[in-house]
């Protein structure tokens, strides 16, 4: 099926790969991180344990979907911090009150 009688390769025309620049705005939205933050805040506000656990789960998802460590780290860290904060708040409220 391939119809090359001679070699189609042209080493002189080879251009090395240049990665297209990616601006932070073009990255897909980190839905998981957003959901994690929402659940984390809900967990802190209403002191509802399931919320803070879900926040942890979604922040794990947001880590798992991180594409570019430099660009995404800020968002992901925020999600983690909020969800962990919710856990810690809960622990303090329930465990160490006395």
């Amino acid at each position, binding site marked *: *099926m391939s119809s*090359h009688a001679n070699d189609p390769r*042209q080493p002189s025309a080879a251009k*090395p*790969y240049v990665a297209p620049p990616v601006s932070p705005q073009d990255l897909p939205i980190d839905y998981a991180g957003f959901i994690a933050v929402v659940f984390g805040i809900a967990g802190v506000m209403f002191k509802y*344990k399931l919320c803070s656990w879900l926040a942890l*789960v979604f922040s794990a998802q947001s880590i*798992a979907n991180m594409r570019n*460590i430099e660009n995404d780290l800020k968002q992901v860290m925020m999600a983690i911090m909020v969800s962990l904060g919710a856990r810690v708040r809960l622990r303090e409220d329930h*465990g160490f009150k006395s």
Partner: protein
Amino acid sequence: MNQTMGKVWCSLLFLFLFFTLSLSSSSSSSPHFEGFEAEYDDDDDVFQDIDPSSLQPINTKLTPNPSSDQQPNSPPSDLPNPTPNTFTDVWDEDEFEGLPIQQQQHHSSNPDHIPTHPKSPNNSSHSDPQPPNSSRSFTVEILCGSFLIIFAINYFTGKKENENIALSWAAQFAAKDSIFEKNFSLLGIGDGGDDSPLLLKEGQTTFKFYASGRRYCQGLLATLELKSRHDLIARIYNMIVPTRDEISFEVYMNDDAMDHVVFAMSKKKAAKAMHKDVRDLQRFATLLTPPNAKKWVSDDLAVVSESKEVAADLITDAVIDQVFGDRAYEKVGKGLISLHFSDQHSGIHKKVLLFKFVLPAASNMADMTRLVALVPYYIDLIGRYKLSSQARSKTETARQKAAQEAQRELRYAQQEAMQRKKAEKKKMLEEAEAKLSAEAIRKKEAKERARQMKKSMPRMKMTRGA
């Protein structure tokens, strides 16, 4: 770069997991039952009120059940001896004999024993809701904790799965004596060395393969978009909404190597959608009806093209026999998503050939060999292709028209921007004027007030003088 990223990544995940586990384990060990803080406070008060000596009989009351298992010899009536073995194994009887203060601590840290406390009837009334409450609070933790663990395991296995698929693709089509090796002089994202990496990994689902150094084209970029196998939540979601592993080839043609060609082929529904959504197809091309006299592509496929001539020249007998004809399509057709060739592509590269295929499983990568072979075939076909002068004049007018339209649009946009700027300036000036006038009014008022003050001053003086 990728490896370091992965390492950072792994360490992050480990840290995170460790954090979670430590949190969950400590939270399960520490007594934090919802709505029981008040009770603990009560207990502490109770213990403070109790005379230490009165605690000893309590202890013996508590011990019989567990001690009967562990120490069948010690009778429950052994009153003066507190038999603290029931609480901890390291308890030294002799050393702490008659030291009830220690036992208080044990009591407060062992909430299970509190309800049986005979001296605090309040507690025993509260003790009933405790077991369901505590078990419920643990179910959340157990469920979420185990989900996180499964999530972590799935992350590593899914990542491996995706990498295996990408690597088997590369081994099939980009290794020695493979299709791309025979067609391109530079393979991979490196600068052509022997051990330069073939694939570029972006995230856990996207792999890119680059090739360059071939006649008629500047380069080829293949993007493998795999399922989110590493992400458990996405995996569960994909059970409901199934997705496929896809690969898309973008071939950037040389500017002098591609004539006026706008052509697309896909399944009927998808072709209609493409005709509606993709701008150059919408502007230049029409949905073609299959010709009667000629051998044509399978009935499932639809062709969108600028002219019949282009379509007829691009769908050669060879591709009909190999891929798009009725018989061949049954075999390889399920791997085809779309073809889209255009010299009016939007973006940096104008002349682009786009191929989209479905990736087969890692073990039968060879199934898509015929589809991948389309890529170099069409590069050569379109690179050599020249339109007839008649069709060319038609396409040229269409392109001129489009260019004029684009220019007009650009000018219009520029004009609009200018006008907007002017309006803004005007608004700013007006605002400044308004501010100024407001200030002027204020000054006037101040002056007037001063004048009135002056007027009233002498009167005041007069009144004072009077």
